[in-house]
C-alpha cells in the first residue's frame, strides 16, 4: 500500500490550489471514488505527519491518478515545491468510498470549496446515470475544474458566496430549490460541515439516500490510532467511528453533525 508516485504533471489551478498527476503502483487500479491517499509532504521531521488528500480521478490504463489540494499549512506548501519528475511518498488508496449509483438512476452531487474533488471522481465513474452537480465557491477566482465537472455531469449549477459568478449565495439555496421539484435516487456531498448538514437534513426528511464525506485531522490514516473520530448515531446514544477507515464516506443518517 506504500508507493512512490512520480509526478507527471503539476499545475496551479488557482491561488494556493494545485493539481498533480502521479504515476504509481497499485493506487490507480484499486482506487474508488471517495477514497484518499496519505502523503508524506516533507522530508524527515519537517511537517511530520502524512497529509490525507482525496483522489480526484484514477486512470488504471495509464497507471496514473490525480489529486488537487489547497495549500493550508507547512505540509501542503512543501508538496507544492516538488517538481515534475520528482517522487512523492503515498499510502493508498485508503478509506471507504461512495456507493456507486445503479444504471438508470438519477444522482446529485453537492460540493463546496475544496470538497468538490472526490465528487468529480464519482461523476466520472457513474455511467448511464443522470447527473446534476451543484458546486459552491467563496468567489470567482477559486472556481476550478469547471470544464471537467461540466463534461462529467448533465447539468451543473455554480454559486459563489460573494455573487462574483453564478448564483449569488450558498449552494444549498439552489440545491434546496431543486429538491422541491426533483427527486434524485442518490445525493452525495462533500465540503464545509454546515453545507453537508443542510444537505443531509433535506435528504433525510425526503427519505433520499445521501452520503457525506467527512474530514478531520488524522494520525495514521489507516484506522489504528483513533484520532480522526466522527460522532455517529449508535442506538439511542452516540459512538465514535474512524473517518480514515470507517469513512471518510458515511451514510448521512448516521452522522451527528
Amino acid at each position, binding site marked *: 500500500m506504500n508507493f512512490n508516485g512520480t509526478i507527471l504533471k503539476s499545475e496551479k489551478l488557482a491561488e494556493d490550489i494545485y493539481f498533480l498527476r502521479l504515476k504509481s503502483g497499485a493506487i490507480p487500479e484499486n482506487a474508488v471514488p471517495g477514497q484518499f491517499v496519505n502523503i508524506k509532504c516533507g522530508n524527515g521531521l519537517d511537517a511530520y*505527519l502524512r497529509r490525507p488528500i482525496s483522489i480526484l480521478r484514477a486512470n488504471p490504463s495509464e497507471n496514473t491518478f490525480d489529486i488537487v489540494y489547497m495549500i493550508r499549512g507547512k505540509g501542503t506548501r512543501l508538496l507544492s515545491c516538488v517538481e515534475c519528475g520528482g517522487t512523492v511518498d503515498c499510502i493508498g488508496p485508503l478509506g471507504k468510498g461512495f456507493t456507486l449509483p445503479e444504471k438508470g438512476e438519477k444522482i446529485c452531487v453537492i460540493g463546496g470549496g475544496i470538497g468538490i474533488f472526490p465528487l468529480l471522481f464519482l461523476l466520472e465513474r457513474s455511467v448511464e446515470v443522470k447527473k446534476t452537480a451543484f458546486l459552491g465557491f467563496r468567489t470567482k477566482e477559486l472556481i476550478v475544474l469547471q470544464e471537467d465537472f461540466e463534461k462529467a455531469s448533465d447539468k451543473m449549477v455554480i454559486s459563489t458566496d460573494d455573487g462574483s459568478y453564478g448564483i449569488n449565495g450558498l449552494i444549498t439555496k439552489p440545491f434546496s430549490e431543486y429538491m422541491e421539484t426533483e427527486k434524485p435516487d442518490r445525493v452525495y456531498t462533500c465540503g464545509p460541515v454546515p453545507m453537508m448538514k443542510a444537505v443531509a437534513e433535506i435528504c433525510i426528511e425526503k427519505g433520499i439516500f445521501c452520503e457525506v464525506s467527512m474530514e478531520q485531522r488524522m494520525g495514521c490514516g489507516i484506522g489504528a490510532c*483513533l484520532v480522526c473520530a466522527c460522532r455517529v448515531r449508535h442506538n439511542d446514544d452516540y459512538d465514535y467511528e474512524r473517518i480514515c477507515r470507517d469513512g471518510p464516506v458515511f451514510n448521512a443518517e448516521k452522522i451527528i453533525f
Partner: protein
Amino acid sequence: MDLSVNIAGLKLKNPIIAASGTFGFGREFSGFFDLNLIGGISVKGLTLKPRKGNSPPRIAETPAGILNSVGLQNPGVEAFIRDEIPFLRRFDTCIITNIAGNTVDDYCRMAEILSEADIDAIELNVSCPNVKEGCLMFGSTAEGISNVTAAVRKVCKKPLIVKLSPNVTDITKMAKAAEDSGADCVSLINTILGMAIDINSRRPILGNIMGGLSGPAVKPVAVRMVYQVSKAVKIPVIGMGGISNAEDAVEFLLAGASAVMIGTAGFVNPYVWVETAEGIKQYMEKHGFEKVSDITGALLD
C-alpha cells in the same frame, strides 16, 4: 546472532514492541507487514467497560511530534478477549494488554479477567494524561503507584509491567515504587502533557485542550529517563519515546532498556517496526554484539 530477549518471563523474539495506543489491536498494520516479525504488541489501552473517548480534534502536529487526546477509546476488556485475541493469536508475537482504570478495583478486576485469558503480559497504564479520573492520578505519586501495583500484583498471574508517566518530579521514585510493590518490569515514557493553540481562532487545537506529546521531539527526555530509571531499579526496563529507526532504538538499549516500544513513527512509516529490528541486527554485526541483550546498559559512562 541472537535478537531474543527475556523480560520477566516474557520471551520476545526481538526487542521490538508496538507501543500501546498507536497500533490498535494489530489488524490495520497487519496489512503492511507480517506481525510475526516483531517481538510483541502492546494493544490499545483497555478499560473495564467500553469507552467512547474524547471529543475531536484529537491530534495536533507539533515540531517533530504530535499531541494526542484520544482518551482511551476502546471496546472494553471483554470485547477485546472475545473479538481481538483470536486474531492476534494467529501470529507468533507476544500480546501485552495495556489496562487503565478509574479505581484500584477496576485495575484488579481487569487483571483477574486477563489472567485467565490467552495473553502474555499485563501493562498497567497509570500514565494516560487524557482521562479525567484515575490513571495518571495513580501514576503521578509514588504512593499511588504502590497502591495500584501492590493490589494488582495480588491477583495478577501474568508478568506485570508498569508504564510510567514522565509528568512527575522524579521518575526514579515512581519506578522504585513499582518495583517494591511487585512489578516485574517498567515501561517508559508515556506521553508528555502538552498543548497547542490555533492563533487565528484563538482556541486550543485539541478538543480536550491538552494532550500527550509523542514523536521524535520527546526522545532525549525519554532516553534520559530510561537511563536514570535503569540505574535505579533491578527489574528490566522497556524504553520508548520518539523512536523512529534502529539508531534511536540502540540509544535506548545503551541507556539501559531491555526492549523498546515504537509507536508514533509508525503513523509516518508503517514499516518502522520491522525496519528497526533489521537495523539493530546490522548494528550488532558492525559492533560485534552476539546477543541484543548485551547492548542493554553497554553505555560507556
